C-alpha cells in the first residue's frame, strides 16, 4: 500500500512545521483528575413518545471510564492485556482469597464459553498473579508518574538518546495533518506504555519507534505516557473524507461485517476507547489507522495476536479505508459541515 512509506517520509520531513503548529495552539490543557460532585446530567434528546398518559424521552449519556489497571508491573502484563478488554479490574481485586484451582475455573470460563481472546499459554501467568493478588496489593504503593518530567522528555528528549517526542507527535500529542504519526493526546497511559514496551521488545516492529523506545527507561515511559494521557487537545479541522466511504466505515464500526463483530464493541461507542487497554479511534488519523491495520495484517504488529491480528485479516482494503475515514471525522470540527 502506498501510504506507509511515503506518508512516513512526508511526516518526518515536516518536523519543523509540526513544532510550529504545537506552539501555535494555545488551548492545550492538562486535565486535573477531580472527584465528580454530581451525576453528569444526561443529554436528553428532544425526541419523545407518548401514549396512555405516559411520555418517554430519548436518552443519550456516557458511562464513566476508568483507566486503572491491575497493579504489579510486568507481572501484571498478561492479566492487563488479556482481561481488561471485557471488564475492569475492580471486581477481580475485590474477591476473597481463592485457591489456584478456583481461579483456574474462573479464568478458563473466560476463555470458554466467554471467548476472551487470549492464548491458553497465558493462563499460568494469570493464575500466578491472581493467587498472589493480596501480596501485590499490599506492595503496590509504587512510584507515581511525573508528568512534568514527561513534558521535558517530550520537548527535549533524553540524555540516553531518545529524540523529543514532539518532533513527530507535537508537544500536545496531536501529531500533524499528514496522519503519518498517531494522535497520542488523551490516549490511556497504560495503553501507550504497553506500546512503548512492545516497540522496545520488537513485538511491535517499527524502524522509527523501536530505537526511541529502547532509549527510554521504565520511569521515562511512565512519565511520558502519563503526560500524553492527561492532555485534552483539540482536533484538527481536516478535509472531510468521501461521504460514501465514511458511511460504510460507520456501518462497519457500529454494526460490523457479515459476522457482526464491530470495532465499537471493544473500542467503545464512536470509538471513544475503553481505558486502560483499548485505545480510542475517534479523531485518530485515517492514514495511521489504515497503516496500523495493514501492519496487523502483515504480521509486523504482534501484540494482540488473538484479537486485532485476526480481525484485521477479515478486512479488505476498502473496509480498512472506510473505517479509517469514519473514525478520523468522528471528532472533527468540520464534521457537521460535511453532512
Amino acid at each position, binding site marked *: 500500500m502506498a501510504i506507509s512509506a511515503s506518508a512516513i517520509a512526508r511526516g518526518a520531513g515536516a518536523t519543523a512545521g509540526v513544532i510550529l503548529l504545537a506552539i501555535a495552539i494555545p488551548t492545550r490543557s492538562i486535565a486535573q*483528575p*477531580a*472527584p*465528580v460532585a*454530581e*451525576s453528569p*446530567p*444526561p443529554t436528553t*434528546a428532544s*425526541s*419523545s*413518545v*407518548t*401514549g*396512555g*398518559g*405516559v411520555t*418517554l*424521552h*430519548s*436518552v*443519550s*449519556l*456516557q*458511562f*464513566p*471510564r*476508568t*483507566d*486503572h*489497571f491491575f*497493579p504489579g508491573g510486568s507481572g501484571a502484563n498478561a492479566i492487563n492485556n488479556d482481561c481488561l478488554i*471485557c*471488564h*475492569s*479490574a*475492580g*471486581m477481580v481485586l*475485590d*474477591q*476473597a*482469597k*481463592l485457591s489456584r484451582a*478456583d481461579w483456574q*475455573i474462573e479464568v478458563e470460563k473466560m476463555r470458554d*464459553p*466467554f*471467548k*476472551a*481472546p487470549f492464548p491458553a499459554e497465558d493462563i499460568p501467568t494469570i493464575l500466578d498473579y491472581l493467587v498472589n493478588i493480596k501480596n501485590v*496489593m499490599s506492595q503496590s*504503593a*509504587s512510584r*507515581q508518574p511525573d508528568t512534568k518530567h514527561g513534558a521535558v522528555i517530550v520537548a527535549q528528549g533524553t540524555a540516553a538518546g531518545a529524540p523529543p517526542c514532539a518532533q513527530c507527535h507535537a508537544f500536545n500529542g496531536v501529531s500533524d495533518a499528514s496522519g503519518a504519526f498517531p494522535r497520542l493526546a488523551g490516549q490511556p497511559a497504560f495503553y501507550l506504555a504497553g506500546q512503548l514496551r512492545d516497540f522496545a521488545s520488537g513485538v511491535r516492529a517499527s524502524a522509527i519507534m523501536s530505537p526511541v523506545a529502547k532509549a527510554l527507561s521504565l520511569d521515562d515511559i511512565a512519565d511520558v505516557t502519563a503526560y500524553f494521557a492527561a492532555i485534552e487537545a483539540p482536533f484538527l479541522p481536516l478535509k472531510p473524507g468521501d461521504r460514501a466511504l465514511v458511511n460504510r466505515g460507520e456501518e462497519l464500526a457500529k454494526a460490523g461485517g457479515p*459476522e457482526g*463483530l464491530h470495532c465499537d*464493541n*471493544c473500542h467503545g*461507542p464512536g470509538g471513544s476507547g*475503553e481505558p486502560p487497554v483499548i485505545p480510542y479511534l475517534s479523531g485518530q488519523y485515517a492514514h495511521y489507522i489504515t497503516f496500523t491495520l495493514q501492519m496487523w495484517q502483515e504480521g509486523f504488529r504482534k501484540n494482540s495476536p488473538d484479537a486485532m491480528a485476526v480481525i484485521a485479516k477479515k478486512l479488505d482494503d476498502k473496509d480498512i479505508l472506510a473505517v479509517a475515514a469514519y473514525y478520523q471525522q468522528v471528532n472533527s470540527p468540520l464534521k457537521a459541515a460535511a453532512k
Partner: protein
Amino acid sequence: MSVSERLTSALDRRRFLQRGGIIGGIAATFPAWADSYIDLDLPGGPDRRELTTAFPQKGQMIVQRTRPPLLETPWNVYDRSVFTPNDRFFVRWHWAVIPEALDVTAFRLAVRGHVNQPLSLSLPDLLSMPHVDLVAVCQCSGNSRGLFQPRVSGAQWQNGAMGNARWTGVRLRDVLDRAGVKAGAVAVRSSGLDNPVTEGAPKFMKPLDIDHARDGEVMLAFQMNGEQLPLLNGFPIRLIVPGWYADYWVKMLALLEVLDAPDENYFEKTAYRVPDTPHASVKPGQTGFKTVPVSRLVPRSFFTNVTDATTVKPGAVVPVRGIAFGGDSGVLRVELSADDGRSWQPTDLGRDEGRYSFRQWSTQITAPRSGALTLQVRCTNTNGEAQPAEPSWNGGGFMRNVIERVQLNVV
C-alpha cells in the same frame, strides 16, 4: 433529631470513610471519580469499596465494578422508604456492550418464534395497550454473596443488590396474545440490547415457562416509581417477574422468542443454577447433586436503623425497625428475638403495598443494664415459609436468606 436519625448518622460516619489518607497503596485500582469509600464488613475482606456519583442518572452508589457496571445501593437508603429511589436502585450488567444512547422513536421490541404473527412493536404501540402497575422487589440472586462463609467467587455484594419499586407497564400476556402463541409453545425467552464484547460469547437471555409468562403478573415495565427507567436499570422497557430473582428481569428488553422446546442457553442451562436441595444448600466441596435454575425469591428481613456499631444507654428504650419481604408471597409476620432465638416477639407491620413489596416492620426493645444487646429478625411469608436460622451455602453464592443478627453496644 430523633433517636433513629442519630443512630443512622452515627452509622454513616462510621461507614463512609473519607478519601484522605487511605489512598496510597490502592491508588492504582481506584478511579479519580470516587468520592469516598465505604466499608462493607465482609468476613475476611477485602471490603473497602468506592462510593461515586459518576454514573449518569444515578446518585451515590457503591462501585462493585466499573465495566460492565455493578453498582450497589448504600444501606442507609433502605431506612428512608420501602420504595427504593430510581437513582439509588442497584445496577447489574453481564456484558460490557451496552447502548449509551436510545432513541424512543426508533426503538422496537420484536416478538417472534412459535407465534402466528411475528411483531415489531414500537414504544407508542406498547404505551397504547392497557397499563398495569404493581410494587415488587427486584433482588439479584447473588445479593449478599460477600457474606458467604466459606467465601465464593463472583460479585462480592453486601446486602444492597436489591430494590423495591412501583412498576408500570403492560402485561406480557397481552403482548403475547397480540402475536398469537401457537399450540406447543413451552417457553418465552427474553433478551435485551446488551451484548458480549467478544465474538461467540453467549448473549444474556432468560426464559420463563409459557404459563408463567402468561400469568398476567409478568409485565413489560416502562415506568419505575412513576418515571421512565434510568438507562442503567433497563430503559426503555424491562421485564418484571414478580416474586422471582432479578436475573429474569431482562433489561433493555428488545426480543421475546416463543420457544417450542426447553431453552438450553448458557444462562439457563449452566449459569444461575442452585442445588436442588432444601434452601439450595450443600456442604462446601460436595459434588454429585442435581441443580435447578434459580427462580423464586425466598423471604428476608433486615434491620435498617441499627447495626453492630450502634451504641445505646443501659436500660434505654430503643426503637428498632427495618424492612422485610415474603419473596414469592406476602409478609405474614416479622418477629424479633433478643435471646438468641429462644423466644420471638411480634413487630408492627407498616403499610401493605402488595404481596411482592418490601414491608416496613418496627418495634421497641429495652436495652439491658450492661453487656451487649443481640437482636435477630425473622420473616415468615404467607406461604408459611420462614427464614432459616443457619446460613445456607452453595458455590454460586445464591439465595442467601439466613435470619439477620445485630449486636448493639450498651454503654
